[in-house]
């Protein structure tokens, strides 16, 4: 609880400092405008809960901060950057595309493509030694038992044709 209180205090101070500009601007952004940005942010305390649905007091204060920044005429990018500057990259839903973080985006596709390549090679190696005529040859093993009726049905369809 204590750390929530600290956060609350911190946020209150931060938001208070902006209060004047809010008053000056007059109109207050809607909850939906606030949530549209909050959805993309994660507070450092509540793990893996997006800011727009986080019920803690700290997150409520964050949302108010977004609201006052919006009222200030700040853009979405500016607001997100503001939180990153204060609390680090972890507030973003995805790591920023810089430095080591590139790994998170590069490694899976590389591995998947490598896997696809290995699979393709293996399939080709498997199919090559066999006679190309094998496709039509009848040296197939007996149809597996589950396919008993399917085999019969296929024969049936062939006859019909």
């Amino acid at each position: 609880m204590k750390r929530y209180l600290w956060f609350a205090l911190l946020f209150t101070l931060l938001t208070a400092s902006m209060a004047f500009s809010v008053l000056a601007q007059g109109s207050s952004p809607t909850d939906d405008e606030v949530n549209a940005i909050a959805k993309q942010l994660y507070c450092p305390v509540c793990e893996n809960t997006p800011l727009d649905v986080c019920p803690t007091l700290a997150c409520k204060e964050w949302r108010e901060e977004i609201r006052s920044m919006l009222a200030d005429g700040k853009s979405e990018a500016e607001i997100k950057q503001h939180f990153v500057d204060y609390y680090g990259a972890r507030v973003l839903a995805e790591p920023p595309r810089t430095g080591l973080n590139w790994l998170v985006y590069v490694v899976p596709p590389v591995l998947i493509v490598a896997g696809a390549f290995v699979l393709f090679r293996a399939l080709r190696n498997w199919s090559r030694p066999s006679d190309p005529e094998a496709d039509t040859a009848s040296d197939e093993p007996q149809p597996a038992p589950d396919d008993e009726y399917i085999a019969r049905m296929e024969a049936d369809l062939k006859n019909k044709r």
Partner: protein
Amino acid sequence: MLADFGFGVLAVTFIVTIYSVVTAFLGDRRGSSEMVESARRAQLLTFPLISLSAGILIYLLVTNQFDVSFVYEVTSRGMPAYLRVTAWWGGQAGSLLFWAWLLSAFTSAVTLRKWERDREFLPWVIVVSSITLAFFLSMNLFFENPFARFYQTASGVAAYTFQPAGGIPVTPQDGRGLNPLLRHPGMIIHPPMLYLGFVSFVIPFAFAIAALVTGRTDDRWTRVTRRWTLWAWTFLSLGLVLGGRWAYDVLGWGGYWGWDPVEIAAFMPWLSGTAFLHSVMIQEKRGMLKHWNMILIILTYALVIFGTFLTRSGVLSSVHAFAQSAIGPMFFAFIGLTFITSVSLLMWRWPDLKSETEMKSMLSREAFFLLNNLLFLSVLVVCFWGVIFPLISELTTGQKVTVGPPFYERANAPIFGTLMALMGIAPLSAWGKSTALTLGRALWKPTLPALLVPILAYLAGFTNWIALTGFFLVAFVIFVTLFDTYRGARARQRAQNEHFLTALGRLASRNRRRYGGYLIHISMMLMAVGILGIELFQTETQGTLAQGDSLQLSGYQVQYKEVASWDDQAAGVNYTRAVVEVYKDGKWLGELHPRIDHYFDSQQTMTIPGLRSTLQDDLYILLVDWQPVSAGGATFKIYHNPLVNWLWIGSLVFLAGMLFTSWPDRDPSPIPVRAGKHVRQPAAAD
């Protein structure tokens, strides 16, 4: 006193388990069937022993023995009796014991089977499963003792297994109570289901290792464990679905799945398990992919332990929590050791596991199954990397990062789409040989009506191309599946001169794996409809309303009537319940009651949605904030979740499909017929 006894029983169980490992190992090496039999009996003894220990723990939980720290942590006087029983798996120590208990039950069931035709596996199945059991018991014995009690010492009150010198026993007045999030019915069944899934994957793994050690290279191990694997997969799937339903009902963020690392931890063994479930069929039908199946089951086992490790060690909140928790490094070491040992065994046997037949065509069913495997493993790679990367980042640069839903969705959506396409194509391809021509001939009929679906959807106003592709794929898979079933039943009808429905029933009941599988494919498509609906078309709005005011969303009007707050002292909860009226296009639909529940004992708050659910859409209303009616208004958040109900309907169809596929046969050991027609041969053809 009783707690000490419970701990003593656990200690004895641990010794018995170690005994069964050693005796089984030596029995096999020395060729002594007496020793193996002794190991088997020792193994069988672990189940009643752990049950006794668990029974004692439950007794302590039910009778409010708060001097036991585990009881203090997960129960309180206000909790009803059934929740005190289920609190058994509501905390770290208890859930590890629960894991061990399930594993012991499963291993006992497997050692009780008839072993005539694969006796050589028995000692190694005991060795593998008992080592796993011993590991979990050791976690309870040395690090997370559910029977530890509170003592007051010079340095304060803490939980100890044995009374410290000069320690005075302490009994708190009341417990902290189960985390209210875990008091939901879904959460009562969800962990056992997941654990059942996790634990039952140990059995096929044990058989796989037994096959590797004994050098038996046929498909015996996959045949024996086929049902185990199916059940394991069923439990794991149900666990995941129940978890989703629980999140939807209780977590109050309008969704069912948030790509949270804890969710992914359970999803990863499901992915490799699903790949295994498919590729094992190729081994049975064609004698191929023996290496690959070994790799998959080893991977699944490692991921099962890894999943338990991720959720239990605290590593996810911070790598430093990992270092602080005692069990984290132990899990890590255990995963490493078992993985390296299994892979070494596989390398050793690699040359013996040659394929019996060759791949004939890139369009054969086995080729499609391999592609299916590649895709499942691709999702696995994305998930694994997404979970691991924040840990790597924190370790190497000290920078904490979040890998959240956008990452997973972007990467996995196309893979899932391809999987759906494959789900439609693969069932129509033949084993062994298949050409573009034969495949095309089989596919065009169901494809045409499936194309109508996105066209109609487009005409109805859907312009999102992802949705249109998704709807096409769903229709494609469903039509292919129905068409193929129809073709089969027609063929049988003609061949046997039966009524169509009789033919359909007999066809399905004699090929339960195939047609149960089809039903599961259809269920997946129904679930896909729900997922497409909520992921692509969810809308939301939030606003603070004065009494009588309304919010509008997607044709719905939600009017705030009143709010009331009261304490339920007996349950230890403060309820705040709002009443809202729901209208659609001016028509009154009813009242909904979104709630905020605040639990005194754990100081936690839950946001329970007011939910109106139809086949078409869900209206999901949250009470975000409120002031007493006189002082102002209440803040509501409303989600409109189109089609999401199909996710749950799909889950029910899935369950039906699984039951159909894996329900025990009258013949306890069905042996597939290699040749001849509809003769059910007894145990001989193997």
